[in-house]
């Protein structure tokens, strides 16, 4: 009798736990076991993996350049789960991808899973079309692979995932939706970094040191501590020419610091100034004294040529003019690192400083730590603020749609786990220039093939930049040493890693009855700074215009 009761109770426990994971066609083996993962002991329910054929459609925007690796990852996944077929389709650009999904939601024709920005998924969540991944993330189900044709035959696959291994800033962005649920997981992430003209910086070492800024003999500034805006202004006093023309002889620039994205500049500076911007509820909070002060400060910096936007050169990005010596520093995406490196392919007549050395730094901050009382001075006015370290995180995430069947959801989730595994996030990062989404990537000993003849771990990849900095840029690596090819990418990967602690995200929300969606607000934020920069509006007018554009 006791045995029968125990069996019934065991069965009830199994069915209760299985019910949480929404399994449609599974066969369960009534077995409960304990396993040790990480620091604690968790109970795992071992089940047979569904073996019915499953077709998964995955929509993204990657062209042939990036989809080569993606296709390879898909093949590897299909070898692991032979009953699964993944059809990956590029929808050419993010707008088309979003519009097709939005249109498809109205007729119940959506892919199983898709790539998308947080504001895309905010819309899908609002329409009830996105699937919460929480059950999968927290699942204690473990599948035994019993298909002998599988590449992982005989192994066990956990459905759940250890979130503590993901970069916290990315997770915060991905669980910002209703009830703190994860409707997406981070996938192709990047951040911003600052490229600096080290050759010219080096020629001003004495003046820079006199200003109290630490700089190495070869012109390297700190890679672990960001420059403050006050220090940026000090560098401006040292490196800016008296007119908006670069003086090559005096090694003085027309402009000091370019921001590629005025939208990012507005949003990130708002975070750094602790100026309210928006929140997840879709409230527009820009009408506040701190934002007004920030805009006045930025306006003053534009006028003093300390800050500049690429529009001054009729460009979308400032990297060319950085190479041409029009500006000393430029803030742009980590994914675009090589655009900032002058080479022999550039027209020599345009390269005012020739082919110079480039270093990469963290984006400038109001202070070197958060919650400091800071006073910024634009030469006329003082601005009091409380500091907050902030760097933007950008790039799409990946999610699953509610319309999919239980098995499709399960395998779509396992595919997300596959794409974001330590090994594959490293492969993706090195191949594409995006950043790894897992912390374990930085200590991973998985060898990744960089070219047909070169393989290295992500740790070795990161070490290249560290070694270069440690040698103060004076390296005796042979010209055939492959590390030379990865110096810049490695430096940027290190900078990005150092910034992960203070990644902040832009709350995503769909357009509502009173205000625009977060994507539109971001665009208008950029326009606000553009208007100030081109002097068509004062900071007050630009802010009022911004407010009117996004609220009604």
């Amino acid at each position, binding site marked *: 009798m006791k045995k029968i009761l125990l069996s019934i109770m065991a069965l009830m426990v199994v069915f209760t736990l299985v019910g949480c994971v929404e399994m449609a066609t599974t066969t369960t083996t009534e077995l409960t076991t304990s396993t040790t993962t990480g620091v604690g002991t968790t109970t795992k329910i071992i089940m047979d993996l569904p073996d019915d054929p499953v077709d998964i*459609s995955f929509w993204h925007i990657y*062209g042939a350049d990036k*989809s*080569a690796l993606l*296709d390879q990852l898909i093949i590897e996944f299909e070898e692991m789960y032979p009953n699964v077929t993944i059809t990956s389709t590029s929808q*050419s650009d993010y707008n088309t991808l979003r519009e097709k999904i939005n249109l498809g939601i*109205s007729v119940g024709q959506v892919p199983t899973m898709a790539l998308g920005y947080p504001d895309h998924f905010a819309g899908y969540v609002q329409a009830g079309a996105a699937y919460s991944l929480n059950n999968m993330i927290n699942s204690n189900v473990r599948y035994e692979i019993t298909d002998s044709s599988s590449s992982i035959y005989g192994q066990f696959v956990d459905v759940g995932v250890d979130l503590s291994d993901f970069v916290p800033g990315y997770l915060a962005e991905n669980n910002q939706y209703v009830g703190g649920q994860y409707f997406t997981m981070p996938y192709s992430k990047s951040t911003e970094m600052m490229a600096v003209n080290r050759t010219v910086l080096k020629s001003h070492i004495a003046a820079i040191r006199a200003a109290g800024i630490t700089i190495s003999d070869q012109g390297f500034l700190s890679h672990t501590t960001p420059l403050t805006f006050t220090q940026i202004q000090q560098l401006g006093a040292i490196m800016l020419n008296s007119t908006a023309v670069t003086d090559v002889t005096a090694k003085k620039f027309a402009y000091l610091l370019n921001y590629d994205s005025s939208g990012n500049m507005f949003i990130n500076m708002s975070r750094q100034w602790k100026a309210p911007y928006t929140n997840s509820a879709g409230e527009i909070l820009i009408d506040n004294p701190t934002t007004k002060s920030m805009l006045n400060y930025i306006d003053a910096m534009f006028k003093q040529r300390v800050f500049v936007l690429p529009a001054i*050169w009729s460009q979308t990005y400032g990297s060319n003019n950085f190479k041409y010596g029009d500006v000393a520093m430029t803030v742009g995406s980590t994914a675009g690192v090589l655009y900032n490196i002058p080479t022999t392919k550039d027209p020599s007549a345009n390269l005012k400083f020739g082919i110079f050395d480039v270093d990469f730094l963290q984006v400038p901050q109001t202070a070197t730590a958060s919650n400091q009382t800071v006073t910024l001075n634009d030469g006329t006015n003082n601005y009091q603020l409380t500091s907050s370290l902030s760097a933007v995180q950008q790039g799409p995430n990946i999610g699953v749609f509610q319309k999919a069947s239980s098995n499709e959801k399960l395998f779509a989730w396992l595919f997300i786990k596959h794409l974001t595994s330590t090994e594959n996030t490293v492969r993706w990062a090195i191949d594409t220039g995006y950043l790894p989404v897992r912390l374990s990537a930085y200590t991973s000993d998985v060898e990744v093939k960089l070219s047909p003849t070169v393989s290295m771990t992500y740790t070795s990849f990161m070490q290249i930049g560290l070694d270069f900095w440690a040698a103060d840029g004076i390296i005796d690596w042979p010209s055939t040493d492959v590390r030379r090819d990865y110096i810049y990418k490695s430096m940027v990967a290190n900078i990005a890693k150092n910034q992960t602690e203070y990644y902040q995200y832009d709350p995503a929300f769909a357009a509502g009855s009173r205000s625009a969606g977060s994507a539109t607000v971001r665009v208008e934020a950029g326009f606000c700074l553009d208007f100030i920069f081109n002097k068509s509006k004062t900071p007050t007018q630009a802010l009022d215009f911004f407010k009117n554009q996004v609220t009604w």
Partner: protein
Amino acid sequence: MSEVFVKNEKSYKTKKIISNVLVYLFLAAIAITILVPFYWMLLTSVKDAIMIEQTPPLLFIKPSEWKLLNYTSLFDLVQSGPRRGQPLFPFFTYMKNTIVISIITTIGTSITTILAAYAFARLNFKGRDVVFGIIIATMMIPGEIFILTNFLTVNRLGWYDIMNQTYMDAILAMTLPFMTSVFYTFYLRQTFKQIPNELYYAAKVDGTTDFKYLLKVMIPVAMPTIVTIIILNSMGAWSAYIWPAMVTTKDSYRLVSNGLRGAFTDTSTGRTDYGQQMASATLVTLPLLIVFFTFRKQIMRGVSRSGIKG
């Protein structure tokens, strides 16, 4: 008297010269406005990345300095991964789809337009003008409004199935909603109405059917207008963008216009390779130019008769 005449003639000649100069200046300005984008497309297609981003921009490049890499790289193959050996930019697949769509849409539109225009111009039936008025009124509704309803229709017909869409489904989804045109019907009806009724009555007396009369008399007489419709419609189908992007589920079903949109953009940074994009755009425009120059006389005749501009 002769002095006055000479003076008037001089004044007339001066006015004529001034008028001609102004007219030609105006036409030159319009021609430049139209030609500059074409020139810029061609110029950008033979520049390398550095030349494209050069400030101030290069307005002319000697043929010896042309970079044809943008054209040759369009036909590069994928170097690694499962798609190794396949074209990096499936130009010929996109072109094939575009040609197929243009032909089907044009044939379909021509048939429906000719039949509808004939019915509204020649046949007498109750409520003809009211029906025609209602159809004309739909021209006031922007095309974008129809996207959702057309999408619902295509979906209900089973032509938009994300997992199982066939090439035929995609072709039908892309073409069927655009096989009618209110504007072309109106345009052709006006031409048909100019054909004297006597011809119709004479044909009827000879025992000709309406369909035979349409084929043997109306169509040949209105041929310049029909050719114009065919050309304008094929050009529209050639450059269709939003609808084909919405109703195709596989990359291999797309049109060249959709392929051009995202194929040359670095998805990590958002930067576009304008050189390759313009080289591809040039190749896409080439067939249209060939069609235009081949059928230049018919197009011009049709346009000049109706006063309609493409």
